[in-house]
Every structure is written in structure tokens, then in C-alpha cells.
């Protein structure tokens, strides 16, 4: 059992250390949502009127509405970025060192996932701290409640990235997937506009957005930030996590997934 702990510690430590060293990565992870918050939200404030919808009990500023969506965005990018680094690692070889260590693959992949989630949570709290000075001040307990939600949503989005990395052979393909995954997921969700607004324009888009795991993750975070639990969104996110993870593990299994397709 100790072996597992040491390995988990080693993998998390490595990811954290790399993140701290790569200052540009930290900065861009922070600048992206802040630009959306300071620029996009300011511009759209007038265009989008937000009705009173749960978990909010009063009229809110648009900036307040999109904050959970931007938290989701941080985690979505982080999930994709860590899978990008896995594709890179695989091409460069350091993934091999991980995969030839005497531990089950599922454990190695989950550890890698947890390491990525840990990094994304740090990013989120720094973002929330800056947002606080911009008058986005959810209740104090929200900062605590959001932590378990962040772990679950981070795991789900990380598992999605892991799944993609298992089936992408080269970095070039990955750039395409970023466009086909990140942007559709983000725009077809409740991150930027409430679903009822989307429904007014298109029933199809509304349906897609309702089943988009990213929507569910954002709603789970939104309620958690206000000290509430959106059970439906939580269960959806949890189920999506398990499904993505299982497919990713199969993808990395030498006798079943990617490796099988590469050789035999």
C-alpha cells in the first residue's frame, strides 16, 4: 500500500513542480478567464439580461453569472492541457517511464488525473481571489463548498482529456481536437448564458447543451459556490467521470486499447 502512496505523491509532486516552473502556463491559465471576466462580460452586460434563477436569489451582474462558467473553463483547459502533455510525454518518451513502473495502469492514470486536478484547483482559487476584488463575492462558505465540487468536475474534465489522449497518436491531431472539443463544449453550455436563453433561440441547441457534461459541471460548481448542492448536476458529472475514465483506462490498456491497435 505504501508503494501506491509514494507513487501518487511522486506524480502529484512532479506535476505541481512542473506547473510552478512553467510560469507562462500559470499566467495564461489565469489571464484567459480574467480577459473573459473583465472584457467579454463587461461588453455583454448590457446585451444579456439575467432573470432571477437558482441559486441566485436576486438580480445579478453578468460577471457574477459567468464566474462559475469561467471556473469550469479553467478546469476544462487544464484537463485538455494535461492530456496534451500526455500526448507530448508519449511522443517524447517520459510517459513510457510511467507506464513501465510496477503499478497497475489504472492507478497510474488516476494519479496523473489527480495531479492535474490539484493544479487546476490552485488556479481556480487564485482566479476567485482576483475576482473577489472585482466585486464577485460569493458567500464565504461557498469557497469551502466549491472544493469538493472542483475535485469532481476536475476529475470529470481531466478524464475526458485522458480519454482523448489515449486515442490521439500525434500532437498535430490534438490541435484539431482542441477546436472540436473545447469550443463546442464551452459554447454549447450554460457557462455564458442560462439554458432558457438558449432555448429561446434553438430547441436543438438547448437539448445538446442540457446533455453536455460541461453544462452539468458548471451548474454543479455554480450551486456549490453559493453553498448549495445541485444533486442532478452532481450525479450527471459523476457518471460522466466514470464513463470517461473507464474508456480512457481501456484505451491505455496494452491488450485492449491504443496499444492493441498499434501492434498485433
Amino acid at each position: 500500500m505504501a508503494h501506491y502512496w509514494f507513487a501518487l505523491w511522486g506524480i502529484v509532486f512532479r506535476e505541481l513542480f512542473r506547473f510552478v516552473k512553467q510560469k507562462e502556463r500559470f499566467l495564461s491559465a489565469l489571464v484567459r478567464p480574467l480577459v473573459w471576466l473583465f472584457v467579454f462580460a463587461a461588453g455583454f452586460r448590457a446585451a444579456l439580461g439575467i432573470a432571477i434563477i437558482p441559486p441566485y436569489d436576486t438580480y445579478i451582474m453578468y460577471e457574477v453569472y459567468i464566474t462559475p462558467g469561467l471556473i469550469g473553463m479553467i478546469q476544462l483547459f487544464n484537463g485538455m492541457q494535461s492530456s496534451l502533455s500526455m500526448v507530448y510525454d508519449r511522443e517524447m518518451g517520459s510517459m513510457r517511464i510511467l507506464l513501465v513502473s510496477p503499478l497497475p495502469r489504472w492507478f497510474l492514470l488516476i494519479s496523473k488525473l489527480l495531479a492535474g486536478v490539484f493544479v487546476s484547483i490552485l488556479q481556480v482559487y487564485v482566479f476567485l481571489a482576483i475576482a473577489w476584488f472585482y466585486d464577485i463575492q460569493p458567500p464565504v462558505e461557498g469557497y469551502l463548498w466549491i472544493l469538493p465540487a472542483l475535485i469532481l468536475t476536475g476529475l470529470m474534465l481531466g478524464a475526458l482529456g485522458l480519454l482523448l489522449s489515449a486515442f490521439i497518436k500525434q500532437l498535430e491531431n490534438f490541435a484539431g481536437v482542441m477546436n472540436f472539443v473545447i469550443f463546442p463544449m464551452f459554447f454549447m453550455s450554460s457557462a455564458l448564458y442560462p439554458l432558457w436563453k438558449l432555448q429561446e433561440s434553438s430547441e436543438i441547441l438547448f437539448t445538446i447543451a442540457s446533455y453536455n457534461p460541461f453544462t452539468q459541471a458548471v451548474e454543479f460548481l455554480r450551486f456549490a459556490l453559493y453553498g448549495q448542492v445541485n444533486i442532478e448536476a452532481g450525479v450527471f458529472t459523476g457518471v460522466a467521470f466514470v464513463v470517461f475514465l473507464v474508456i480512457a483506462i481501456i484505451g491505455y490498456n496494452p491488450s485492449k486499447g491504443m496499444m492493441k491497435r498499434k501492434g498485433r
Partner: protein
Amino acid sequence: MSELALEVKQLNFSYGKKQVLHDLTFNIEVGQCSFLLGPNGAGKSTLFSLITRLYDQDKNNIKLAGIDIKVEPLKALAQLGVVFQQTTLDLDLSVRQNLLYHAALQGISGQKAKVLIQQQLEQLDMFERQNELVRQLNGGHKRRVEIARALMHQPKLLLLDEPTVGLDVASRESIVQHIHHLCEQTGLAALWATHLMDEVLEGDQITVIHQGRVKATGQIDKLMQQTKTASLSQAFFALTNNRSK
């Protein structure tokens, strides 16, 4: 019969319909330094991927220190140290951090990890550089760190996939000597894939593979005798030249 560090028995492997390994059979004894010679595309890298379990195989054809890698993969992998052809170190971490990471993956931590890291780095004259970033090291030093890493958990078999490619003569020589010394002194077995014949020393075991088949096994003089040639290079050429089959 001597104890075997690696046993490969009737190993076949295909990429789709293309069969790349045909009935590959060879052994490496404990303490033996064994070379795998073969031209590009001979199947060396595929064989390494199978031994390291990056690829899977259908049957129970590979045993590491007597452990079947299909039946007990984790126990088998614990017996293995690997130096891949490409550098697999984390360039943004220091030498010591890279080794600590590997130690953690092998289940070694704390004082024991420190002692083992120091031991391995001292043996390879790299202890003084333990706090340097890997990015700042030259190719030869990076290789030494990778060898230290591969040996840190005291494996029974060390796999080296063309570890000296791109290194200067002095670095190559020191690596060749170090590995031979370890095989003689500690009972470590090594499987070393290379194109460079001068890395093979008298007494080393050689397995020549070509187009996924074992063409010959034995020591230098046996191969020269078998092919009626005067050097290992000529013997290798004779064995891997299709016209002379």
C-alpha cells in the same frame, strides 16, 4: 542450467497483418551482458516494447527473472530497468528530482531513496551535479542520469535501447565499461540494442536479429566461425545481408 534473467520463447508479433517477429527465441543468463544486433526495422524496438509491456502479447512467451510478464506483470516489471533510445528525463526538473520521482514510482521513499540516489550518482560521477537542471546537462551526462535511474531500484535485468547514440567517444566508452563492470560484479544482466559493434566485448553474448528472426546467437568468435568472417562487423553483414542467406 544457469539462472535466467530473461527468457524469450517462440515470440511472434504482428502490426495488423504484417508480422514483425517470427518465433523469436533467446535467453539471457544472470550476470550476462547480451547484445541485440540488427539493422533498422529488424524488430528490436518492438521486442523492447513487448518486454516492457508497452505492447501486449497473446501467449506466455516472455519471462523476467523467472516471472511470466503476462501472468504477473507488476512483479515482472519490478525486475526491470530501462534506458530508452530517446531521453525520457524531465528537462525542467533537477537530476535529483528526476530520480526522486522514479524512486516514488518504484515505491522507494525517504532515507532509502536518498541513499540509493547517492550510490548510483556517485558510481557514475554525477553526484556533484545532482542539483543541476537536466536541461543544462550535455548528452553524455543525461545518459548517465538515465542509467542511474534505471538501476536505482536494483533490477535484475537492464534494457538499453541504443543508449550511446549521439554521444562522444569518451562518454560512450565510459558507459560501455560501466555496464560491463556491473554485469561482472553485481550479477546484473543487460540486454543492449546497438548498431555500434565496438561496444561488444569479448565474452559478451550476441543475438543477431534480422527481419524479425534470430539469425545467430553466441559470442564474437562463434559468430565469426559460423559466417567464416574475420570480424564481428563482417559476420553481422553476412548474417543480415539477404543475398548471403
